[in-house]
């Protein structure tokens, strides 16, 4: 009979180097990931620099009360959700369509060239892409407005219009991510049994019917997982895209949670108030992701964990 201690000793003897490798890793996650989670207590305090996080007085739910009753909150929450809903409706289907089209290209070379061009924007920062978008849409020197003028149309102030701004936002998302988003769908399509296409063709199905009855069902689970993942990210619009495109004239549609936390928290030094907002966002996101994962598994797909 080996005792527990002996078994541990044997494990330790065999794997001690592995454990030693993990020491810096564990320290990293404790210090830089879990410690900031403790910092969330600031949302229940009134942070004062001189007293630090622990010395500052508790205020219970006051910060949240202040937050939920403010007009800013309603606006940034609405903007955050709306921009995500627009992306879900208009940007989400584009990579699927692109992948369906790429999948029909016979020439491997042509396909590869196309893909490599379509991936490029994904590797550019939003600062660069935002700069290009603003230059492109400029009412005085931008090429889009030059084209409009050539057709005798009035120049459009795209970036300063609350109607055009969300359209620009979604359009720029499509530009950056649609090509890159095809990777997973193309991989799913490559896994479809080619005999299914032959059978469909023998049954007299044309190209479009084959896409409808064979390809789309073949990638259904990939679509489902990516779709629910996107829903799980409903509360989060990336900081840099919005920040690089927004300006004060369109703040009523362009201010979102992440930019607001930066401006009020880091710039405006309202640490406790914005921590409360950040905590609200994180908790809702967590609940969304957990429910979405349940949903995927209930649909009989492999979950995210």
């Amino acid at each position: 009979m080996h005792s527990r201690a002996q078994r541990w000793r044997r494990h330790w003897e065999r794997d001690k180097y592995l454990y030693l490798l993990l020491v810096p890793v564990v320290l990293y996650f404790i210090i830089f990931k879990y410690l900031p989670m403790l910092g969330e207590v600031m949302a229940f305090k009134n942070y004062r620099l001189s007293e630090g996080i622990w010395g500052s007085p508790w205020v219970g739910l006051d910060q949240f009360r202040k937050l939920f009753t403010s007009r800013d909150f309603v606006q940034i929450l609405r903007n955050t959700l709306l921009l995500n809903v627009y992306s879900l409706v208009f940007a989400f289907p584009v990579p699927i369509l692109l992948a369906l089209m790429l999948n029909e290209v016979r020439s491997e070379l042509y396909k590869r060239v196309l893909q490599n061009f379509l991936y490029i924007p994904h590797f550019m920062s939003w600062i660069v892409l935002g700069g290009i978008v603003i230059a492109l849409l400029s009412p005085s020197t931008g090429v889009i407005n030059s084209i409009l003028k050539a057709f005798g149309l009035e120049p459009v102030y795209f970036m300063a219009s609350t109607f055009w701004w969300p359209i620009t936002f979604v359009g720029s998302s499509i530009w950056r991510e649609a090509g890159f988003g095809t990777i997973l769908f193309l991989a799913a399509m490559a896994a479809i049994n080619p005999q299914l296409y032959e059978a469909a063709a023998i049954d007299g199905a044309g190209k479009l019917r084959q896409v409808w009855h064979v390809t789309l069902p073949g990638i259904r689970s990939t679509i489902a997982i990516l779709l629910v993942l996107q829903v799980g990210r409903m509360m989060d619009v990336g900081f840099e895209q919005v920040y690089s495109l927004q300006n004060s004239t369109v703040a009523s549609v362009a201010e979102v949670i992440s930019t607001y936390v930066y401006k009020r928290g880091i710039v405006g030094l309202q640490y406790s108030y914005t921590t409360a907002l950040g905590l609200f966002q994180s908790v809702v996101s967590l609940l969304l992701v957990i429910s979405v994962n349940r949903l995927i598994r209930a649909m009989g797909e492999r979950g995210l964990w």
Partner: protein
Amino acid sequence: MVQSSGWFRALNAILLACFACATLFPFLNIVAVSFSSSRAINAGEVSVWPIELSFDAYHNLIADGQLLVAMKNTVLLTVVGTALNMLFTVLAAYPLSKRRLKGRNFLLMAILFTMLFGGGLIPNFLLVSTLGLINSYWGLWLPALISAYNMFVLKSFFEGLPEELEESAAIDGAKDLSILWKIILPLSLPVMAALTLFYAVGWWNSYMNVLIYIKSTDKLSLMVKLYQMMQNIGPELLSTSNGEGVSQATITPEGVRAASIVLSILPILCVYPFLQKHFVKGVLLGSVKG
């Protein structure tokens, strides 16, 4: 039937070419603007090729030098940051790929949880400032040592390698560390290349963290500098700083902005052709989670 599918294919190929052109058009336009004369830019005549070829915007940027300093900072930020990322990601992924390791599942769950819930901007900011890392690149590098997502990608790649390799090496007397260095890592080059690319692009493009944590202007990264220049091209950038030649009238803010955008994406475009075959592999591995 054959006829119709031929038409279908041709139409499809043309539509896809249109998509690709639409994707590339903004880049071609910005390159063209950067090489065009200020008269042509202001008249809105530039589309995809330079009108009245001019290098004034580049002369001006290089003479001014601020963007080049930011570029040098970004090279440092990227090289050291990526090296630390790869080191720590391997340190985490290798032991965690061993199913026999005690406590493995607990650690994996703890890491997965950090992907779903985080401390948020302000608590992270206070941690970095408490550690005295404001205005130091360590304040950028340390909090970002490991991307949990990339760690899971690498871990599942390691798990896919045949165990016999390690066993036979162990019989030959190799220890874990030399097995990792001499056998596992050489076999993992494609996925390592993909992760290196993703980390490096992230550092090259880093904006928000630099904006928050770096205060002194001579330490700013390329993207922060670029953003500042796009917000306001001040008179100092539009005047002649090198005495010979470029007069104020020949420079327009749009041209200088375009040139600075082109300069800051040039390095990515240079490495892109060499690495593009690897990143697809990286993405696919990431989607097959273990």
